């Protein structure tokens, strides 16, 4: 075969290999982003499950703080039916602020703060909130990789051909680590 023929074959092989590699990379990032979203969902559900228990425990000591209880319960049910990444994030921020208020109420009742059941619930809540934060971090990292691959040339051509769309970042307030940071800076 002529030299030109060999060059054509080499180019075709390299192109084919690149296409396989780039396509598999898109699939990998998309699957990881989906896994990340599923994990966020698991952790958010765990938090929804904790809220009625927490409200019930605090109610036993501070029955007259009805407004706070209603607020957090309402935020919870709104969040459960929220749609889309941005909508979910907004609803979760409301849940977080409701929970912060609930815990602030608990601060005023020393008996409640010493209650073993409350302490266990508080640990579960803190653990779940940090898992939400970590799941969000993982999801956003994967979305960043996916979106970069989709938008940058030449893999953007592949993305367009196979209908890969950029995903939305999940932006919620960091409820867990913010107060700790303040404490550290104060030292």
């Amino acid at each position, binding site marked *: 075969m002529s030299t030109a023929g060999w060059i054509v074959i080499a180019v075709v092989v390299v192109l084919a290999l690149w296409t396989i590699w780039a396509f598999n990379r898109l699939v990998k990032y998309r699957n*990881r982003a989906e*896994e*990340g979203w599923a*994990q966020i969902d698991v*952790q958010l559900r765990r938090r929804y499950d904790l809220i009625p228990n927490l409200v019930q425990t605090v109610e036993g000591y501070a029955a007259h703080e009805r407004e706070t209880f209603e607020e957090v319960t309402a935020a919870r049910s709104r969040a459960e039916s929220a749609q889309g990444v941005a909508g979910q994030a907004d609803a979760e921020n409301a849940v977080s602020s409701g929970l912060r208020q609930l815990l602030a109420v608990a601060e005023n009742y020393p008996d409640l703060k010493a209650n073993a059941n409350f302490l*266990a619930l508080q*640990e*579960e809540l*803190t*653990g*779940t909130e*940090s*898992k939400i*934060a*970590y*799941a969000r*971090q*993982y999801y956003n990292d*994967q979305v960043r990789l996916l979106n970069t691959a989709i938008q940058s040339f030449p893999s953007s051509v592949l993305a367009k051909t196979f209908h890969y769309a950029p995903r939305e970042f999940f932006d919620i307030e960091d409820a867990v*680590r913010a107060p*700790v*940071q303040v404490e*550290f800076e104060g030292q």
Partner: protein
Amino acid sequence: MHEQIAANKRKTVLLIILAVAFTGLIGWLIGYLFFYGGTAGLIIAVGLALALSLGSYFFGDKVVLTSTGAKKVTPEQEPRLHNVVEGLAIAAGVPKPEVYVVPEVAPNAFATGRDPDHSSIAVTQGLLQIMDRVELEGVIGHEMSHILDRDILIGTVVATVVGAAILLSEIFTRTWFWGGGRRSNNSGGGDAGILSLILFAVGIFLLILAPLAGQLIKLSVSRNREYLADAEGVLLTRYPPGLISALQKIADAPHAMRAANNATAHLWLEQPSRVPGKDTSTIERLFSTHPPIQDRIKRLEEM
């Protein structure tokens, strides 16, 4: 990170080949010198070494956990630890490792296993007592990085192979001394003479092997990986002050570890044999499995 994973897998294979070849050589020599033919000795020794290597690959984590006295804990027993481990597993995108606690007062931790699907994290009782949540996250983030980089694979295989070498070395040298004492009592000869000669030869081999094994640990477990795991751990927690403060607490802790064991020293977060409250000298630095803790803190502060 991918280069790190590949390098660790390569090193593990190399280590196993070396261990098998070395044991095979000993077997061949014993057979050749004492049983009029080396082939049987070679086959037996290679078989044993292969079994040991496979065992260390599949059950090395259990051996390491048992030898350190680690006990598995449930989420009910240690809710905070379980929550932190699960959180960082989510951050790293790997399954949650099994969670163990070591009954030790000195604050320390290690990870073991062969890959992210088969991994365990163990922390000491002392660590749980003195660390707050963010510090614990810093420590677990560091261990999670060892899991991600497959440092646990090479570390666990080294621990089991070296542990077996140290154990054999002790058994043979003790038997040899004991046998030697008896030989001088009766003028002996015949079978007993051959047996003590065998033990003598094996003992010499293993006396050479034991310090070699120590060097092997140092070669395979580069101290740079501790800096790397610190940096990657912080990448997971996104909060360097947590790990900095944890390392400072470990440096300030007044207790040394009871179970300071040569075979597993390199696996721990901080070298178990290090005397607390004392600065490390240059010579110690050359022969240690871990970089000085203050250097690690300095590097984290610069990030």
